[in-house]
């Protein structure tokens, strides 16, 4: 009898606990496909890259631990020095073009109002839709100093188009300009989305108080747009290094004289053209650490100035 009483009591206690346990597992179950993918394609390759950067991979032989030899060898390479410096240049010169320039464009489109808004947005978005390989090839033709479209426009004026892509002093700037052109429209659309959340009544009330356009921009629009600026700045830093890979590969091959290579392209050359896995992994790891530090620094600097409405 006592057993018959005890059983329902245990069952009433066990059921919510089991349900609670099942409830706790459910989120993990739902997340598991994503977690598995992340583990397989992000974290495991990252860990394996760390391993590969400190070993010498040999055919038919076990990997040999070489400590920091791959890193020291890399530091002695002139290609690495050039690629590191160029990486800094790419980031530093791209930021104003990709982060700041889209702001006035977005404000202009926003002020233009709903009329033609779709057309403006479509025009802004077109470069983003184009394949970067196609864009790179088209720009090669356009910038050709003998037969290019730009030269055709300059010729009647008696001007000569400089050989931008084969001059070590200008090639990197040409690539920065083209890669910025590709994303300016997209970033402007992000700013437009940010601007759309700003109530127009606030502007009208500032106008009634006699505020100038500059005052409205500085004191209202930019502070309320700061979360979007923060997002665009972070993503631009992170994506610039890898985004310019395509134009480097298609337009200059890293030259002339290493003038356009960067760490991302160098890692590719080491890994997939030279099969120097140790150096390539060391380069990738340094790039990962460098970009991580830069992103953290920017997050810290900009995060303090971001105003969330």
């Amino acid at each position: 009898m006592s057993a018959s009483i005890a059983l329902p009591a245990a069952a009433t206690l066990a059921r919510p606990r089991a349900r609670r346990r099942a409830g706790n597992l459910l989120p993990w179950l739902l997340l598991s496909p994503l977690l598995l993918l992340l583990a397989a394609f992000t974290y495991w390759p990252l860990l394996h890259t760390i391993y590969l950067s400190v070993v010498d991979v040999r055919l038919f032989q076990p990997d040999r631990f070489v400590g920091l030899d791959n890193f020291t060898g890399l530091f002695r390479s002139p290609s690495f020095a050039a690629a590191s410096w160029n990486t800094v240049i790419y980031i530093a010169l791209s930021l104003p073009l990709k982060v700041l320039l889209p702001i006035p464009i977005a404000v202009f489109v926003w002020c233009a109002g709903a009329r033609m808004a779709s057309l403006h947005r479509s025009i802004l978005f077109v470069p983003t839709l184009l394949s970067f390989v196609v864009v790179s090839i088209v720009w090669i033709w356009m910038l050709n100093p003998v037969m290019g479209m730009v030269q055709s426009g300059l010729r009647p004026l008696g001007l000569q188009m400089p050989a931008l892509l084969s001059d070590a002093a200008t090639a990197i700037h040409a690539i920065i300009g083209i890669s910025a052109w590709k994303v300016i429209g997209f970033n402007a659309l992000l700013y437009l989305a940010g601007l759309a959340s700003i109530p127009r009544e606030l502007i009208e009330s500032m106008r009634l108080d006699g505020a100038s356009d500059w005052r409205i921009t500085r004191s209202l629009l930019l502070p309320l747009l700061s979360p979007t600026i923060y997002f665009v700045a972070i993503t631009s830093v992170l994506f610039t290094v890898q985004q310019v890979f395509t134009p480097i590969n298609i337009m200059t091959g890293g030259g002339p004289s290493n003038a356009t290579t960067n760490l991302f392209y160098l890692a590719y050359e080491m890994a997939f053209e030279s099969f120097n896995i140790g150096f390539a992994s060391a380069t990738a790891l340094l790039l990962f650490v460098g970009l991580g530090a830069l992103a953290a620094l920017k997050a810290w600097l900009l995060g303090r100035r971001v105003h969330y409405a």
Partner: protein
Amino acid sequence: MTVTPITTLGRRAALGASLSTLALPALAQSRTEISFWHYQTANTQALREVLAGFHEAHPEVRVTDVPKDVGTIATEVQAAALARRPPDVGQMLARLTVGLVRNAGAVPLDSGEDRGAFLNNVLPRFREVGIVDGRPFAVPHSFGTPLLYWNKAIFAAAGLDPERAPANWDEVVAMGVQIRERTGRFALFISQGGRDVSQQQMMVNAGATMLSPDLTRATFATPGAIAAMQLWQDMAVTHRIHSTLSEREQNTLWLGGQIGMFVGSVASFQGFLRDTAGRFEFGVAHYPLWKDLPRRVPNSGSALMVFSQNAPRRAAAFKLLAYLMRPEVTSRWSWTSGYLPLAPNPLADASLREYLEREPRWRIPVAQMADTVITARWPGNRVVEIQIVLENMVQALMQGTGPASTLVPRAEAEVTRIIAESR
């Protein structure tokens, strides 16, 4: 029950069909399948015709050809070897053979049943490129040599004889200056495709040797090579006859009929025939001589290597190589693909003689086979870095950032350092 002849025939046919279906798997089982990785993407059809001939001659072997990118095929082969799944036969850039022997487990070609007898079908000076530590590990296949192509219309417009090409570099400069002054066009474009090929050709033609015999250090900074590189810089900076545009831009300009002379591989010949048709007529000349030295031009192109680690497949791979090295096959491959014929006496082949009747310009590369020397085979696993050093050396010369007397020895020291540090 009487069996009519028709029924008997039907039963026999059915029996035959059943037997044949039984036999098909048996044939498939006895057939060895091998893979052949190559980068002949522009000549895939011609290559497949050659392979069709092989399948006819050797029904017991089935070759699956896999087109790859020329820039990454060596890496892919090494990665596949590391994963224990290498291709059975790979078409590799000849200058990478030493590294591939050490890093991809290539098999000596004289380890087959016929002890590499098919190698005798290849010109001895061509065979050198595959010898590593005294044994043959690679056999030339799509082999090139540099030539001078010229645009006859631009020559005529500049007041030059459109049928006469420059024979040496001094004439290249003189004619180039005349083209620039009379037509305002670029006179010359030395193709730098392959990164380290064109400078090597110019320096070796000027008497240099790229590597020490033991492959441990670079040796190209000789007075002759420095003078040749200085001439290259002078042509770009002082005489302004050499286009300083990027490789891709220059190719476009040459095909558009905007450049007077093009120095590049014989491998471009068939493409030029197609791409310049109806636009301009081009001539083909030997690689220009340097001063009074005999012509010495490093060959470029690829060699075939065997990576099979399985005995039956390796035997099948050797059969394929033996077929591909038959003189009649190499001759046909030559004029269909645009690469050099490989046989010691290529003119013994009737099909090649017929082609020369139709296309006399092809006599130039065939004759230049006698002037070729082995290309530098960079050792170790840092070949691309060596190539970048040599590429940057030329680009620095073209940008005028320093004289050849500074840039060439600096590049030599850098290449030696990389070789010493690589494995």
